[in-house]
């Protein structure tokens, strides 16, 4: 345990002037903000947002649907030839409610579902849900 001491009673005004000086000095420091569309901050390797799905790997185990804390993932049946996915069900993701908790990536037994650096996924209100095919596509193709 240590007792914090109150600072010595400052000489009136001098301390305030010092504070003003510190504030004024920051005029010459580099800004910390980034001009977003022109300059993009370098994102760390682990930064995650948009969910991708590898259709060939997905085995349709529905674990991601179960673990999703707020029910953003639902299974859809997709007509597709995949010997590992006999039931032909694949997850879709509603990005309107997805909180990017990464539990689906964590639990996926075949690493078919994974999160990526892509974060510019602005969409209109009725098209938040990405179908399994859209999850496998790049963001540019989805927007078309």
């Amino acid at each position, binding site marked *: 345990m240590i007792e914090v001491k109150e600072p010595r009673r400052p000489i009136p005004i001098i301390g305030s002037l010092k504070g*003003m000086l510190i504030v*004024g000095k920051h005029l010459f420091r580099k800004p910390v903000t980034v001009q977003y569309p022109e300059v993009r901050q370098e994102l760390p390797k682990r930064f995650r947002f948009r969910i991708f799905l590898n259709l060939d790997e997905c085995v349709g185990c529905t674990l991601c649907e179960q673990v999703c804390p707020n029910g953003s993932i639902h299974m859809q049946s997709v007509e597709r030839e995949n010997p590992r996915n006999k039931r032909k069900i694949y997850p879709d993701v509603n990005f309107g409610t997805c909180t990017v908790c990464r539990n689906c990536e964590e639990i996926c037994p075949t690493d078919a579902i994974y999160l990526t650096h892509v974060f510019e996924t602005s969409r209109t209100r009725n098209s938040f849900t990405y179908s399994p095919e859209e999850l496998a596509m790049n963001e540019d193709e989805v927007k078309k």
Partner: protein
Amino acid sequence: MSLYSTLLGFFSFLGYPLSNAAAYLFESIFLLLAASLSLVFMIYLFRKYMARVQLRIGPNRVGKFGLLQLIADVFKLVQKESLFPKNRDDLPYRIAPVMVIIGLMLAFAVIPYGSFFYFGSLTVSDTGVSVILLFAILSIMPIGEVLAGISSRNKYALLGALRAVAKDISFEIPMMISVLAIIMMASARTSAPLSIDSIVVTEVLPYGILQPIGISVFLVAMIARASYSPFDMGESDSELITGFSTEYSGMRFGMFYAGLFGSILLGSFVVSLFYLGGFNGPFSGDLGAVWLGIKALILVIISFTVWLSMPRIRIDKFVNFGWKYLLPLAMINLVISGALTLMTGW
């Protein structure tokens, strides 16, 4: 040679009565334009300075370096709906922001700006009693604030207006007394000590050096007049939302906002005129206005720094401060400068 006489000469083909009228008209238009442009520039400067000090970039999207941002903001404010509270006191509610702006613009009209090359003296209206006129005009603006606070029938606005009144009373008397000391000193050297112009002309040695107490009292009073932090009790945003202007929106709010920045600029002009030698300086015959502008700009930057780094003082402590420290200090300053004037003839 002044702006007025230049204009009079320009319009002389119209005959005396008409050219006189035209000269006054154009002079007023110039004043209004210059004042509102400098207000816009002030707000731009404030936002840019605040952003840089706070490690941000500031406006930089509209126009080069964001210079047109404020113009865009003015258009936005004009377009916005001006909301009217249901229980308002209609007439005072409408005229309150106008009064603030009128007080501000009138004050800009009596300030002597010094001379600038071809135009001569830029002073708009020079009377023999411009000191009295200036402080009379300065007391119009608080009326607008009080009217706004009371007429919008909002509890926050009412509390803000009450605080504004308490604040105004407690700093204006010390302010006037410290101006009295200036007039006293000036009266020893000029026959017209009530005209700001002649006060400044006598100011070979700036009065700020002769009256260090006076300049600090007056500076504090000017900060309180403009009501920004640390003395922004009237509109303290973390307690009373925005005080007396809580219910205003659109351009009516914009007028209060312009009033705030206008008072900072005005305060800087007045302090530099009374205490820092105003338009005196090398080549003041040609560059007088530039000197005044530079001095005012430095004061403006200092006041922005004060604004950004000081917390808000509590209202009762400010009233105490005003009556127990500022007023005696102003009195002491008066006595000292009187003695100085008597002994040295200064």
